[in-house]
């Protein structure tokens, strides 16, 4: 029964994140939310890169694509493998940056309230080139809640099963932690691992090999892998 519930939740998440926006945020309220971003990001006339890149023209832009900014490897990889900033991807990223790019240097826990994200996205939308109100322009809204069901996060994985499953990972990912060309996956906090794998499974993360590998793992298998990798000694 529990398993059934989990599967249902996953299906629901996948569907809602693909849904088209029909609700618009409030840019004025978004400006208030934006205060949390200000210590690192600038937006508007004369905005420059600071601790984080400036946010002008972010809609439609490939992630990690400003020449003059040094991004984390994780976000650069997400960008080259297809992550573009639109309302839906921004929404997922703002909810929990690490679920989308685990090694991102954006050390921000995320905006948990869908309304805050919606408003913030509406505010940022005003600093992108195309007016928000023409139909073919990027929609501003995507009021969904992508959070993984706490029941999934609470699953305790079987490390022995995880060890067996991990042999699929180690064809490419090195257990030594080496990360040339392919990122390291050892010693991650279990929750980050689970979030990342579900983000691939739900196709919120963009790498095709990982979408395929995660796509056929169920929630218990992902938990098993997380338990195994978290316990690996270097």
């Amino acid at each position: 029964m529990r398993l059934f519930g989990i599967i249902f939740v996953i299906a629901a998440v996948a569907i809602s994140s693909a849904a088209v926006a029909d609700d618009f945020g409030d840019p004025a309220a978004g400006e208030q939310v934006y205060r949390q971003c200000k210590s690192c990001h600038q937006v508007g006339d004369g905005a420059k890169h600071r601790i984080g890149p400036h946010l002008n023209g972010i809609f439609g832009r490939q992630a990690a694509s400003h020449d003059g900014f040094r991004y984390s490897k994780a976000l650069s990889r997400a960008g080259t493998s297809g992550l573009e900033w639109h309302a839906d991807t921004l929404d997922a990223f703002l909810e929990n940056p690490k679920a989308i790019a685990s090694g991102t240097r954006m050390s921000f826990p995320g905006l948990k309230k869908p309304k805050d994200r919606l408003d913030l996205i509406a505010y940022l939308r005003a600093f992108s080139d195309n007016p928000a109100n023409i139909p073919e322009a990027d929609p501003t809204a995507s009021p969904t809640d992508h959070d993984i069901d706490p029941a999934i996060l609470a699953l305790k994985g079987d490390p022995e099963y995880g060890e067996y499953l991990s042999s699929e990972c180690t064809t490419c990912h090195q257990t030594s932690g080496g990360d040339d060309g392919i990122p390291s996956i050892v010693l991650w906090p279990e929750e980050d691992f689970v979030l990342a794998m579900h983000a691939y499974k739900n196709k919120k993360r963009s790498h095709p090999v990982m979408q395929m590998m995660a796509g056929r793992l169920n929630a218990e298998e992902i938990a098993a892998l997380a338990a195994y990798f978290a316990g690996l000694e270097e």
Partner: protein
Amino acid sequence: MTLNRRQFIGTSAAMATVLSAPMVKAQGKPRVVVVGGGAGGATAARYLAKDSKGGIDVTLVEPTRKYYTCFFSNLYLGGFKEIEDIGHTYGGLAAGGVNVVHDWAVGVDRAAKTVSLAGGVSVPYDKLILSPGIDFVDGAVDGWGLSAQNAMPHAYKAGSQSELLKAQLQAMPEGGVFAMVAPPNPYRCPPGPYERVSMVAHFLKQNNPTAKIIVADPKPKFSKMSLFQEGWANHYEGMVDWIGEDFGGGNVSVDPAAMTVTIDGEETKVDVCNVIPAMKAGRIAELAGVTDGNWAPVNAADMSTKADADVYVLGDAASQGDMPKSGYSANSQAKVCANAVRGALTGSKVFPAKFANTCWSLIASNDGVKVGATYEATPEKIAKVDGFISQTGESADLRKATYEESEGWYTGITTDMLG
């Protein structure tokens, strides 16, 4: 007498003294013999030794002291790798508790459950895993035989054949002709011949830009065809002439003495001729009596042969269903097999079979593409579940990232195989 690593790692002369008894005596632990230390065999041996924590006596029989990976051997031809970059020794396996025996397996007695080695000894097993790779079908290309492999190399087993082909490529006269005879399905590494064409073209473009490449192919189409053709047009315009089945590419004969290739009745004098003949399972599979036709049929759940539940076949030699014959596939199958064999011998938990494959190919500097799929075991075969392939017209950044990924994969898989 036990099969001790120290004794076996020595020369075959030393081995002969150690093993003066014709038969190695059985002892308490269950014994697994693995024949072939390549992508499938090395992985299986390593996982069995590692996961059984010494509970299984694992012997690996492999004649060569250094395994040259076929994967990335095309990159060596293209000048992206040195030969030593793709050579790997067995020290890591030995350190991991595998008895590595450098010898040929020359026969299998399935009734007595022993493998006989060229050195004269026979090694008993409870479970036997064969991963011998491929051999070539006799008479597959008119005019070519193994005795012609120095004049017209196949370079489809890496090492000295790769070096020979590279030397011939370097010695080509200005504006010369490089011919390839491509193999019919099924064969090891479906994109392999076409990645090779790309790497040869890359080398020639830099060193001999007026040279030409002709490919005679018995197939009407091939793996990642649109990606390769797009790449050849972008990077090597006018250099590659691919003659498929429709244009008589399957009607080929060669004359290694005269260095000519005749395609559909038209004879051409060539400077280098890379003949990649039709393939079959490595001969030991046939000698063990587990083949049916050219390949060894296996059960998808554990890679055991249809012929004998105690004999398993991995990698290229197996006929298993939908997986392509690749190093990635062999490595994936080996892990499923090791889990099942360990379960059968020690009672450890056996988890359901999951298989995967991804093949990266390099078309030019920083222009990498990939194709991959996941698979599951059904009662009939290993069946494809889901897959993806790179697209034409992808950005240069993505292609570069894909190439970098393949470098990461190479380090990952060779470590996963050999420790």
